[in-house]
């Protein structure tokens, strides 16, 4: 099968190009006065004058100009839109740092049960015992995975968990009468880490990496002083490498009285293999949408629970789900504890993203202890196999591994030789992959690698899928040797081709003119 049109763009070759194209219309462009989908329930109370209930000074003069469309049009519009998305249920999605593993279908079924989905967040705890028990159990299970005793499920995303971690660190030090001003982040850190540090009111101090891609321990020693509140670390790092000096890192950080924060983006590499708590981390966040397979939804929702050590526990957000022993032979009672005087307070409304908890809890219960360990084993096996297979296929000549080591669940290649030798950049390689029906890996991250390509296959992919990926990379490089324009002008087969992002940012059009 050819992935390259004979000549011109796909749209130019379209035999129906002289017909009006309604394919790309927005829902607002489909609007026509008089059409409707919603029929209000019958008015069964007196037909009061609206003016008497709501004085004119508070009233909107014109209704909001929402689309006027019928139900069949809405369904067709959004179904058509859906077909302009690539998705994990359709194809390989080796997006580094994002852990695009299979989303089991059971999870949608159980999350939609009315007892979960239609439960009001302010329902009295005595009438929400199933939900609170599920949250309690999930707290226990996540604590077990992290090797830390206390968990708050409240943060809504990884970045939100990070912010919780920084605020917990602040509360911990302030409670001891200490004012600290700096937070250390390695050069390999996720972009959210430094942004979080700023929002938490600290100054970011960067720590370099050494020749093997690990945290530079000398640089860390030089920068770790008593002004430092915390070191935020991802382990394995964003290079997909385990921090071999983790014991020494923990010692340096704790010796100056700082906390050690674990960014859980890469937890999929080590479940049941080792635990952040045993490494000396004080605070860990989980990405339930990565490791624990909440579907990403095109960019949310997720959840970013945190696990913490004893010394951080008093400051956890409130309310906290607790288990109280039953009296008189009754079973335990699950409750929301608001009486936490040292708590940093709420990070959001209600108790967190419960619908996400249901899915992740179902996942953990399905897998159990051995299954979670197998996840990490196969995630790491798949990544190392893919790396070896790419190397064997000769890809390393153009796309060498940034660090030539056994990787964990993901690895980073550098496209610098490819750019130099073949005249195509990592971006072009990625765009050409789109024509082969796969999602490209993460590109241009981490920043410490030139022309970075970050590949995370996950445990749920087959060997055949990985082999196919290698064939695609080999084929794109072969094409590029013959004619770099093929990659430079890709993609050809997608609903739209390369988009002018610079123009979009220069003169932003972020809503429809109505």
């Amino acid at each position, binding site marked *: 099968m050819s992935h390259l049109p004979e000549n011109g763009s796909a749209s130019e070759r379209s035999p129906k190009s002289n017909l009006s194209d309604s394919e*790309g219309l927005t829902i607002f462009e489909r609007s026509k006065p008089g*059409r*409707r989908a*919603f029929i*209000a*329930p019958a008015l069964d109370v007196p037909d009061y004058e609206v003016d008497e*209930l709501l004085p004119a000074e*508070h009233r*909107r*003069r014109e*209704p909001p100009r929402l*689309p006027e469309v019928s139900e069949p049009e*809405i369904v067709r519009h959004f179904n058509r839109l*859906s077909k302009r*998305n*690539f*998705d*994990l*249920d359709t194809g390989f999605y080796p997006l580094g740092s994002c852990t695009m593993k299979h989303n089991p279908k059971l999870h*949608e079924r159980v999350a*939609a049960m009315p*007892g*979960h989905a*239609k439960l*009001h967040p*302010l329902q009295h705890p005595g*009438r929400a*015992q*199933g939900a609170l028990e599920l949250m309690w159990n999930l707290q226990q299970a996540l604590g077990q995975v992290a090797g830390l005793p206390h968990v708050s499920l409240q943060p*809504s995303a990884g970045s939100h968990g990070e*912010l919780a971690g920084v605020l917990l660190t602040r509360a911990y030090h302030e409670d001891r009468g200490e004012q600290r001003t700096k937070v250390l982040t390695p050069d390999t850190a996720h*972009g*959210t880490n*430094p942004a979080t*540090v700023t929002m938490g009111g600290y100054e970011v101090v960067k720590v370099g990496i050494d020749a093997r891609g690990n945290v530079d321990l000398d640089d860390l020693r030089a920068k770790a002083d008593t002004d430092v509140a915390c070191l935020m670390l991802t382990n394995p790092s964003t290079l997909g490498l385990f921090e071999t000096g983790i014991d020494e890192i923990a010692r340096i950080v704790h010796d100056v009285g700082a906390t050690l924060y674990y960014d859980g983006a890469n937890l999929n590499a080590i479940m049941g293999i080792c635990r952040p708590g*045993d490494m000396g981390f004080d605070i860990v966040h989980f990405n339930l949408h990565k490791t624990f397979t909440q579907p990403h*939804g*095109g*960019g*949310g*929702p997720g959840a970013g629970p945190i696990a913490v050590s004893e010394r951080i526990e008093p400051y956890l957000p409130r309310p906290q789900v607790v288990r109280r022993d039953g009296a008189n032979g009754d079973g335990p009672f699950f409750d929301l504890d608001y009486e936490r005087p040292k708590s*940093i307070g709420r*990070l959001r*409304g*209600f108790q967190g993203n419960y619908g996400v908890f249901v899915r992740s809890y179902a996942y953990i219960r*399905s*897998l159990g*202890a051995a299954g*979670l*360990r197998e996840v990490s084993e196969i995630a790491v*096996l798949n990544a*190392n196999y893919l790396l070896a297979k790419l190397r064997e296929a000769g890809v390393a000549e153009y796309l060498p591994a940034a660090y030539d080591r*056994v990787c964990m669940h993901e690895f980073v290649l550098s496209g610098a030789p490819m750019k130099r030798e073949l005249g195509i950049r990592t971006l072009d390689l990625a765009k050409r992959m*789109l024509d082969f029906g796969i999602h490209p890996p993460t590109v241009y991250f981490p920043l410490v690698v030139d022309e970075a390509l970050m590949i995370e296959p996950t*445990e749920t992919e087959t060997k055949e899928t990985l082999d196919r990926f290698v064939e695609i990379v080999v084929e794109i490089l072969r094409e590029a040797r013959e004619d770099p324009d093929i990659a430079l002008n890709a993609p050809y087969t997608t*609903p*739209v*081709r390369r988009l002018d992002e610079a123009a979009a940012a220069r003169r932003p059009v*972020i809503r*429809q003119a109505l």
Partner: protein
Amino acid sequence: MSSYVSATAEDRREMLAKIGVNSIEDLFADIPARLRLEAGLDGESAVGSGLSEQEVYEELRALAARNISAEDELSFLGAGMYDHYVPALIDSIIERSEFLTPYTPYQPEISQGGLQAMFEYQTAISELTGLPVSNASVYEGPSAVGAAGYVAKVSNGRSRFVVSRGVHPHSRETLRTLARGWGTEVVEAPLHDGATVLPELGKDVSAVIVQQPNFLGAVEDLTGLADSARDAGALAICACDPLPLALLKSPGECGVDIAVGEGQTLGNRLDFGGPSFGFFAATEALLRRMPGRIAGETRDVDGKRGFVLTLQTREQHIRREKATSNICTSQALNALAGVIYLSWLGRRGIVELGELMLKRTAYARGRLTSIEGVSLLHERPVVRELALALDAPVAGVIDRCLTAGVNPGYALGRDYPEHQDGLLVAITERRTRADIDRLCDVLGAAVAAERSLSVGAAGVRA
């Protein structure tokens, strides 16, 4: 037990051979031996030892059965999340793999569906709020209030927020939690007869933060509040309930700089509090200070219209510590449900829905206050929620109502000690006249019973 892996024993052997190691264990050699768990995780813990799909289904079903959902009782609970009807077409669309399972649209050529939906969502939110720029959504309502505070703090660098006590208690607490990190002081403005009374606003006020309608259901004089903020050189931030905005003067028209709010009522489930989405809209001047993702229109190389994530130079993955926020996701799927819902309601439908709730709430207000021992907490206009003062212990009243199968609303005492026996009652379009009549009967009986108890007790004491 399944870990959803596909690697057969033969695959594993071949793959290890290709890598050039003898065992999977060898791949973990970089981990210090001290740290390695020889026996793995504890299968006796809550993690368990693995179950079949059917067994997990049964466990989750049993847990669900121990919750009393809004389907299981006649519920008037609101206070930030509301039991609105969610049309069937939303489930059908958002369950599609193409919307459910992609990541953030980093590759726009294969993400046009999600990106265009974001663009349509932003248009709908701009229209509802009367503000020209909307992002693609943030986590949820109360943290959106915090995010708006951060924009104000970064915009004018002033040292204090004045936040109305009419703002949702969770939003106020979230703002305090976050503002501690920025060193911004949070002071509260009191309510009088349900409406915010602002103190004298000094030059140190970064933002005035109010809610419309406020937590007690009252429609505020939003124009007057925004004017006061502007006169002091502060930003006016309003947390809005999006459905009442069908009837109310939009925040933009009132002079508000940032409108945020909880999006659950727009086609999302209750889900015991999440996931939902927070919306975030602002004036043009604040465009480049907005947190979160924004979709923008552009053209491809063939001149075809398309959509991309834009203004990414605000964002954390490029700007790192200088980013406008650390938020790196939207709540895309929940916001998608939001724009489908708004399309389903449509231009006329959203007003009809708003007026139905307005009238049923007015009916409830009249009937409830005719009960002996029940009065209004304030006289302000209301749209779909009203606050009552009970002349009886609210906890006892609620317990009696629950026994009769009616959840009468939210007790205000925890958040408003000044309204120790206050009750907040929400009337969504799912609550009919017959439901309201039943509430009145049950609540009336419960209040009477509690009052006779306390009169009795007083009599004994006397």
